[in-house]
Structure formats: structure tokens, C-alpha cells
């Protein structure tokens, strides 16, 4: 029996569908099987070939903003995947590309610096990796510096940089520099001035700190600010007096071989002209056993 044309076509179609089904199943199965094979990766190889933003600006064919958006979205996913061990190797490079492609795109500056600081803290706390900590903190400053340079009207970048210097790096001169830079930008909030005064105090320049807080106190627009400045003035004066009194007590011990019984003894022996009092006119508390001086009340609970 010879098969009819229609029957032949029917069997050919059936065969074709069988091929499609079999190859389709093969695709899915083999895809899953191939994914299970762990391939060796080169550290940083996933991003090492990303060229500089300067080049990409031309390669983006006018779609710079879109290219910046795409890389930013990718970067967020990339840096929030801890499984990629070497993801932090080219951190600043990636954010520099985004900044170069779209210098007015604000989020990458803040978010990039935030990720860098968070990862830096993790590096120090979990892995005790001082080198990675330093490199990431440098990256955070580099990103924020670019933000400030590209957006001179935005106070938030020097503010963030000052905050990182103050809180994470404990680099008070650097914090003061950034807060001073921030204060010069129109729209910067009043509290930046107070943060700068606090940074000056923490770096140990008590005289400038006193002058700065006094200036803030005099120009305070409301009672709350006046009170804050007053508390800081109290603290600065107490610190100056405490240093003076404890230093004199130490000298007293050098001469007499013992600590003074009270602060009046320092006046009687000529180490100080008079016993200072705190900003509220109250006496300081002196411990004759240790030679330490403290205020009767916390500066922040006056």
C-alpha cells in the first residue's frame, strides 16, 4: 500500500512536532545541567572590561542618561549580592562611570557612598580587613567629592563626607573641613554649623571651639539652638578648666609627692590664681584620691 500525500504530510508533521518537543525538552534539561557545572571565574572578571565613563559617553550614542540608569540599576543588584566575593574590587570605578555619564544624577553619589561605608564597616568588624576598610572609605570620599564638584549647589555631599569623617573615620580635622565647605552652600541647614563646632572641639582646638559656639549662641534664632549652644559652651569651658585643674594637681604631686586635698590647696600653693567654676557658677567636683575633676551635672542635662 502506497501512502497518500495527505497521510505522508501528516506523518511528517508528527515527526517534526516530535523533533520540536524532544529538542525543547533537551534545551531545558541541558540548560539546567550546564548551570549546575561550576565554572572557574577570574576575580573581578565580571566587570574588569567596563571601560571608563569618558569612553562610554561616546559609546552611548547620546543615551548617556539611559546608560547611567542601566549601570546604576545593575550596580545596585551587583553590590547587593554578597555571593560575589570580589565585587568590591572596582567599586569606585563603577560609580565613577555612572557619575561621568550623568553628573547630575544625584542618587548614585549618596547611595554609592552609603554602600562603600557599610561595606567598609563590615570589612573591619567581620574580617578585620583594615586595607579594604581604608580603600572603601577612600572610595566613599571620592564619590562624594565628585558629587560636590559636579553639583556645587548641593550641600548634601560635603555634609555626608563630613559625617563619614566624623562618625566612621574619627578624622575631626577632615570633618571640620567638609562641614565648613557645606556651610558655604546656600540652603545648608543650621545644624551643619553646630556639627562643625563639635568637630573643632573633638579635634582638640578648644579655643576656636569656644569662639565658634559663642558665635552660634549669640546668633541663635531660637531658644532651642541657644540652649544647645549653651550646653556646648558649658562643656567646652568645663573641659578647659578640667584640663587646667588636673594638670595643676599633677604638678602639685610632683612637688609634694601627694595629690592636693582640695582645689583650694592649688591656690594656696600658687599653682592657680583662683578655683574656676563652671558656666553656671557651680563648683567642680574634685576627687583627692585620683586627682580627677568633673562637673556636678552632665552638660547635656542642665
Amino acid at each position, binding site marked *: 500500500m502506497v501512502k497518500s500525500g495527505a497521510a505522508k504530510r501528516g506523518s511528517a508533521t508528527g515527526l517534526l512536532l516530535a523533533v520540536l518537543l524532544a529538542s525543547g525538552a533537551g534545551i531545558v534539561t541541558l540548560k539546567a545541567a550546564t548551570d549546575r557545572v561550576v565554572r572557574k571565574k*577570574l576575580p573581578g572578571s565580571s566587570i574588569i572590561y567596563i571601560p571608563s565613563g569618558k569612553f562610554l559617553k561616546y559609546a552611548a550614542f547620546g543615551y548617556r542618561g539611559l546608560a547611567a540608569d542601566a549601570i546604576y540599576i545593575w550596580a545596585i543588584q551587583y553590590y547587593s549580592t554578597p555571593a560575589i566575593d570580589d565585587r568590591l574590587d572596582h567599586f569606585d570605578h563603577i560609580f565613577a562611570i555612572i557619575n561621568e555619564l550623568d553628573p547630575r544624577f544625584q542618587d548614585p553619589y549618596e547611595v554609592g557612598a552609603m554602600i562603600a561605608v557599610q561595606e567598609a564597616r563590615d570589612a573591619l568588624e567581620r574580617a578585620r580587613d583594615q586595607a579594604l576598610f581604608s580603600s572603601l572609605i577612600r572610595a566613599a570620599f571620592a564619590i562624594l567629592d565628585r558629587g560636590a564638584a559636579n553639583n556645587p549647589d548641593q550641600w548634601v555631599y560635603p555634609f555626608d563626607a563630613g559625617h563619614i569623617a566624623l562618625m566612621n573615620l574619627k578624622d575631626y580635622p577632615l570633618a571640620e573641613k567638609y562641614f565648613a565647605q557645606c556651610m558655604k552652600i546656600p540652603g545648608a541647614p543650621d545644624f551643619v554649623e553646630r556639627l562643625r563646632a563639635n568637630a573643632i572641639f573633638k579635634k582638640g582646638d578648644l579655643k576656636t571651639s569656644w569662639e565658634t559656639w559663642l558665635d552660634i549662641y549669640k546668633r541663635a534664632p531660637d531658644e532651642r539652638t541657644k540652649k544647645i549652644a549653651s550646653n556646648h559652651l558649658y562643656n567646652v569651658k568645663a573641659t578647659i578648666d578640667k584640663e587646667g585643674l588636673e594638670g595643676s594637681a599633677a604638678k602639685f604631686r610632683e612637688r609634694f609627692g601627694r595629690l592636693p586635698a582640695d582645689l583650694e590647696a592649688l591656690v594656696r600653693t600658687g599653682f592657680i590664681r583662683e578655683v574656676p567654676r563652671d558656666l553656671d557658677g557651680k563648683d567642680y567636683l574634685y576627687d583627692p584620691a585620683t586627682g580627677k575633676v568633673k562637673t556636678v551635672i552632665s552638660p547635656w542635662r542642665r
Partner: protein
Amino acid sequence: MKIGAIAGITFKEAKRDRVLYLLFFFAALGIVASRVLAVLTVGDRIKIIKDVGLASISVFGVLMAILIGTGLVYKEIDKKTIYTLLAKPLHRSEFILGKFLGLVLTLLVMTAAMAVIFLAIVYAHTARVEGSLLVAVAYIFLELILITAVAVLFSSFSTPILSSLFALAFYLIGHLSWGLELIIKKMRPGTGKALVRALYLVLPDLENFNFKTEVVHGLPIPPAIYLSSFLYGVCYTAFILGLAVLIFRRRDFI
């Protein structure tokens, strides 16, 4: 036999295509120019030469597959030579497979020629034949076979311009689909995740044929991936060709 005859004619036809030689010229130029690029770098020059060379073979090979492949079937329909061919005792599936194999043969010759130039350039720098580079070239060729099948598929029902765009889109998707894996990991379990997972499995993953990094840096390649990647390429090509035949069988040329 009939498939062989069609493939032979297609090969002869492709040989006369000036686009092929133009692309080959640029590929050779790219491979040779890698020497110039290497001069501009500091450090590992041979790495730059290998990277640029393999990229040239891959990119220009894909362009050859797309630009020639997308016109293969369309030209026969446009010039009405398809009537003469199909009037003979020739199955449409044989016609499609012949066209596909003819272009694959052309690409094999072109890839081999590019590989020879590439190996010669590498030899000029290292004074040794690096056979491991051929692994990357072989899998580039496997990728080109799949792209050829895609070009033939689109050529069977669309114009060359649209077919080129579709095939190019297939190529781009194939090299970007791995990103779905990242999305899947971040998604909460549910229908959405299952859908994305299904999409991930179905979409082409041309990174399975990409051994360039491993070969250039001398990283070990797990033996299991050779076979699974090869079979993956074969299955995908068979699927695409099956679709092409299915569509072409139902086409009406009048």
C-alpha cells in the same frame, strides 16, 4: 543527497557574496590590529591580542551568519527561483536543511581561516601554537551554527532587514539572559518567580559557548561543560530548524 546538493549550491552562492569577503577583511584587520592595541597597553600584551582576536572571530562570524543567513531563503522567494526548486521532487525541509548546511559550511571555512590568522599572530608573539585557543574557537563556531539556524528561521517568513534585527536580538538576549538568574535569586517564591524561571530556561544562553575568559587566562574548564554545552547547542539548533521547517512548510508563495 538532495540536502547535500542544496548545501553545495548555497556554499557556492555564499562564496560569491562580497559581504562575506568584506566581513572577513574586517575580521582579519581586527585580529592583526590587536598587535597595535597591545603596543598601547602596559603589561600583558598577549592577553590583549587573544581577547581582541577571539572577539573579532566571534563578532564578525555572527555578522556573517546574520547578514548572509537572513537573505538565504528570502532571496529564493524574491527572485522566484523557489518555484523552480519546489516543482522538483524536493521536500521543503530538505531545502531548509540544505540552505542551513551550506551556510554552516561557509562559516566553517571562514572561521577556520580567521583562526589560522589568529593563531599565526599569537605564534608571532609567543613562538608556540596554543591549541587551547581552538577550544574557544570551536565553541564560537557552535554558537555561529545556532545563529545561522536562527537567521534561516527568520528568513523563512520575513524580510532580510527584519530578520537581521530579530537574529541580532536573539544574539543579544542570548548573551544577557544570565542576568535573569540574578533576578530569580532576589524574587520571592510564587508565580512571578516560576514564570521568570521558565523564561530563563527557555531563552537562549549563549554564554554556554563562551570559553574566551577561561582560555585566555588558562583557567581550568570543567570537562562536564564541554558535553552539556555541545548538546545544548545541538538541541537548540534542532529546535530552531524544526520551527523553520514547520513554518516554511506552511508558507504559500502564490
